């Protein structure tokens, strides 16, 4: 299987006042297409930052990031935006749906950036809603849905443009146990049956167990060894 994500020597610094904060230090990572990876670590260790970099939402201070053939570190904002629209689906802890649009329209939103006709957009959105098991809730606005349902809509939205990569930042962080299990099951299905590559940040070891591999971060470094057979990680990064 081919490589989908490659981070080489990635560093990220933020300025907090005059002080430089190193959030990611020399992160190296390589992820194959079709992998399901959980990213764990204490709060503030840089998980969201790494996810944002891989999702093309932010640029590294130094180092190279290549995802699905595009060098994100050197791409401009415009090409990053259209790349995100095609290649990445985002799932956030707080769903981030647009409250004024119903579920169907929320799911259709990313398709407005494509050339699809109105009826195709409608059809694809309906299909995505069907995959997450909410085909009967298309007309509901987010406020009329439970947390778990809203997260399903968000997952449908992430899926609808058929990206190869899903990045999920604590997707079950705001949900109760049972609902969380359902969402994780859904992600697993997407991974197994649709072959999506999933990168998921979580605090929950049970959630992490759903993934094929778990990576651990601490103080801006990837520290853990890899659990699982098939992931090609370069030695430097696998050593604590």
């Amino acid at each position, binding site marked *: 299987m081919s490589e989908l994500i490659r981070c080489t020597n990635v560093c990220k610094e933020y300025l907090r006042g005059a002080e430089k904060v190193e959030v990611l230090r020399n992160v190296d990572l390589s992820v194959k297409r079709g992998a399901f990876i959980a990213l764990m670590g204490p709060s503030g260790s840089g998980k969201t930052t790494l996810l944002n970099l891989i999702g093309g939402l932010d640029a590294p201070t130094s180092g190279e990031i290549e995802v699905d053939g595009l060098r994100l570190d050197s791409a401009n904002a415009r090409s990053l*935006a259209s790349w995100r629209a*095609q290649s990445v689906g985002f799932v956030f802890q707080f769903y*981030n749906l647009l409250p004024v649009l119903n579920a169907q329209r929320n799911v259709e939103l*990313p398709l407005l950036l494509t050339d699809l006709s109105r009826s195709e957009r409608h059809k694809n959105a309906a299909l995505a809603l069907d995959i997450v098991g909410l085909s009967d809730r298309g007309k509901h606005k987010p406020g009329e849905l439970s947390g778990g349902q809203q997260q399903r809509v968000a997952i449908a*939205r992430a899926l609808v443009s058929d990206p190869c990569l899903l990045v999920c930042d604590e997707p079950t962080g705001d949900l109760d146990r049972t609902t969380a299990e359902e969402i994780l099951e859904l992600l697993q299905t997407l991974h197994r049956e649709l072959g999506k590559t999933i990168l998921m940040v979580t605090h929950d070891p049970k959630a992490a167990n759903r993934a094929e591999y778990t990576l651990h971060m601490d103080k801006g470094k990837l520290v853990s060894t890899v659990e699982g057979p098939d992931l090609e990680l370069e030695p430097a990064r696998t050593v604590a």
Partner: protein
Amino acid sequence: MKLISLLWGNMFRKPTRTSLTFVSLVIAFLLFMLLRAISDAFSGGVSLEGMDRIVIDSKYSMTDNLPLSYVQQIRSLDEVDQVTSMSWFGGYYREPRNSFATYPVDPESYFDIFPEQLISAETLGRFNNIRVSAVASEALAAQYGWNPGDTIPIIQDIFPQENGSWTWQFELAGTFEYSGGQLLLINYDYFNEAVIGWGKDQVGWLVGRVADPPEVDSTIQLIDGMFENSSDPTRSTTEDEYRRQFASQLGDIGTISGMILMAVFFTIILLTGNTAAQAFAERVPELATMKTLGFSDLSVAALVLAEAVALCVCGGMVGVGIALLLEPGLNANLSEMVGSFDMSGQSALYALGLATLLGLIIGAYPAISAKRLTIVDALRER
């Protein structure tokens, strides 16, 4: 275009807030239309007609009269092509609320001086020949359903007849085209003959056409010079200037309404701008989400701007619409006071242009902020 449903959805996310803003916009644009119509009426509209016309009035007050003999004296000047006299007649038709401008005039010279007020040769002939005749502007005849040959009683409040009667009867000779709304013209000769002694041989003001328009200033000086040392000195101005002075004597309505409008729109900008900024702050995470999904900085900014413009334009359209609905009623009630009370299509277009501009001003700050918004910072803030 594809984002229209989002645009509408966002406008109505806080119905109370949107309605309040909307209502204040509607009121502002209604006021805009009313005040513009008023100030237009007072400035008489801008017309190129009559640029060679001068108005000769009493030097000290517009309400002072001039001797009738001035007509002949001025007409005899080489520098003056034609001159006609007009007077204020006043009065009303049947009931005091049916009042409109009525001027005793000399038919031939009047319509020569005002060629833009079209009258058929036949009607003019009758007006000339029948001493007790009158001609009405089309608007006036239409308002009261008058037909040629009708007898029109005008009840006077200034000029009784020599025989003591306060009611003057006129026979309608016909109508003429007049853009200023309601106007009745009666025969000066008949008026002068029938009016009570103290009202005879006087005219309110004169309107002349100069022979050589570029020399209008020296002609004005010549005329005023002629009467400078008489008991009735004159002040002559070009017609346009006269209208302006008339307006300014009435309290400079144009300036006042301009100032009111400025205050209104300034307040609107502050209020609506504040609302827009507030609405923007609430939406930061959503806008960041749209950017995450791949919407460009510019399209997100355009969405925010379009919302502000759409709100203002809708408010403007409703305000203008209400104003246009009110127009016929206002016109009937106000036209005798201020000439015509027209809400022109031009004012409406101007209002919509202003509404767009207002939207752009109000939406500018949120739109720029939306463009600058960085995804990671916006998502962290929640």
